[in-house]
C-alpha cells in the first residue's frame, strides 16, 4: 500500500512536468543530413574543384555507380539509425544491410582488379587518398550531428549498433560528397580509399556515439 502511494506520488510529479512533445520524424532528419551533404559537397568542390567529366557533362560509369552505391549506403543506414531512435519490439532495422553488401563489392572488386594487374592505386599519389579521407571524414562528422542529436532525443536500445550504423551512414554520405571532386576512377583506388574511409568512420562511430546516446 505504501508502495502504491509512493508510485501515485511519483506519477503526479511526472504528470506536472508534462509538456507537449513532437514525435521524432526520421524524414526531417534525413532531409537535414541530405542538406548538410550537399552543402559539404559545394564547399569541397569550391575548394578542390569538380571532376572534369562532370564539367564536360559526360560522367564516367564508375562515378555514377559509386555515387549510387554511396548514396544508398548513406541514406539507407541513416534511415536505420533514425528508426533506432524509436524502439519497438518486433521492429527490424535492416535497410542498411543490403546497401552495405552492395558497397562491399567495391573493395572485393578492387582486390580482384589488384590481383589481375590494375595499377590504379599506385597511379594516384598518397596525398589524394589522404585528401579523400580528410574531406570525407569532416563531412561525415557534420552529417553525424543530426543523427546523434536524434538518437539522444530518442531511446536507442542498442547504443553500440547505433554507433556503428551512425559511422557507416555518415561515412557513406561523406564519401558521396567527396566523390564529386575525386578524379580517380580506378576500382582498386575506390575499394581501398573509399572502403578505408567508411571503415574509419564506422569505427569512430562505434567508439564515440554510444557514450553520447546512453540513457
Amino acid at each position, binding site marked *: 500500500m505504501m508502495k502504491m502511494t509512493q508510485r501515485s506520488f511519483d506519477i503526479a510529479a*511526472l504528470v506536472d512536468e508534462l509538456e507537449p512533445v513532437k514525435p521524432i520524424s526520421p524524414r526531417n532528419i534525413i532531409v537535414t543530413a541530405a542538406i548538410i551533404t550537399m552543402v559539404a559537397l559545394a564547399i569541397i568542390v569550391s575548394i578542390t574543384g569538380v571532376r572534369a567529366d562532370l564539367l564536360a557533362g559526360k560522367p564516367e560509369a564508375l562515378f555514377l555507380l559509386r555515387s549510387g552505391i554511396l548514396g544508398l549506403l548513406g541514406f539507407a543506414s541513416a534511415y536505420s539509425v533514425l528508426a533506432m531512435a524509436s524502439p519497438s519490439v518486433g*521492429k527490424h532495422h535492416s535497410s542498411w544491410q543490403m546497401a552495405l553488401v552492395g558497397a562491399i563489392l567495391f573493395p572485393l572488386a578492387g582486390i580482384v582488379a589488384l590481383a589481375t594487374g590494375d595499377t590504379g592505386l599506385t597511379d594516384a599519389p598518397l596525398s589524394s587518398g589522404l585528401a579523400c579521407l580528410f574531406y570525407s571524414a569532416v563531412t561525415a562528422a557534420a552529417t553525424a550531428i543530426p543523427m546523434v542529436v536524434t538518437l539522444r532525443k530518442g*531511446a536507442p536500445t542498442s547504443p553500440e549498433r547505433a554507433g556503428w550504423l551512425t559511422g557507416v551512414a555518415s561515412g557513406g554520405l561523406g564519401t558521396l560528397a567527396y566523390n564529386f571532386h575525386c578524379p580517380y576512377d580506378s576500382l582498386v583506388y575506390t575499394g581501398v580509399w573509399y572502403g578505408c574511409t567508411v571503415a574509419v568512420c564506422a569505427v569512430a562511430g562505434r567508439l564515440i556515439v554510444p557514450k553520447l546516446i546512453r540513457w
Partner: protein
Amino acid sequence: MKSNEESLRQLMRLAQRGDKSAYSTLLTEAGRWLSRFYAHKIAPDAVDDLVQDTLMSVHRKLSSYDPSRPFLPWLAAIARYRWVDRLRQTYKHQASALDFDVATEGHEDVVGAKISIDRLLFQLPENQAEAIRLTKIEGHSVAETCARTGQSESLVKVNVHRGLKKLTALIESE
C-alpha cells in the same frame, strides 16, 4: 490485450499533445502492466524500483514513441532495456527464492508472449540463460551457481557477461 493496446495507444497520443489527464491514466496503467511484465524476472522487492525507473524513462523519452505504431511493443522495448540495465548492476538478492504468487494475467496471450522477457531469455544459449537466471534474477552467488550448474567460476562469469551483451542486442527482437 487488443482493447488495452488500443486504449493505451490513444492515451499516449493525447499525452504527446500535452493532455495531463490522459498522461496520468497512461502512467498508472503502464505501471500496472510493467509490474506484471517484470514479475518473476527480477527479485520481488526490486520490481517497484524497476517499474519507477521505467516510467521515468517513458517520461523522458515520450517523443521516441511513433504514434503510427503499436504502444505496447514500444513500452516493452523500453522495459527490456531497463531490465537488462538493471541486470548489469551487480546486486545480491536477499531472498532465496522468488515469490511465485504474483499475478501474471494479461501476459499469457499471443502479443504478451512475443514481447515478454521470457521470449528474450529463450533466445540465449541455455548455459548463458541459466547463469543469468541464477545469478542475476534469483540472486544466487557465483559459487552457488557453479554448484548448481557444474560450470566453473570463470565460465559462469563469462556466460553472464556474454549473455547480457547478447540480451542488449536482442532487446527489440520478438
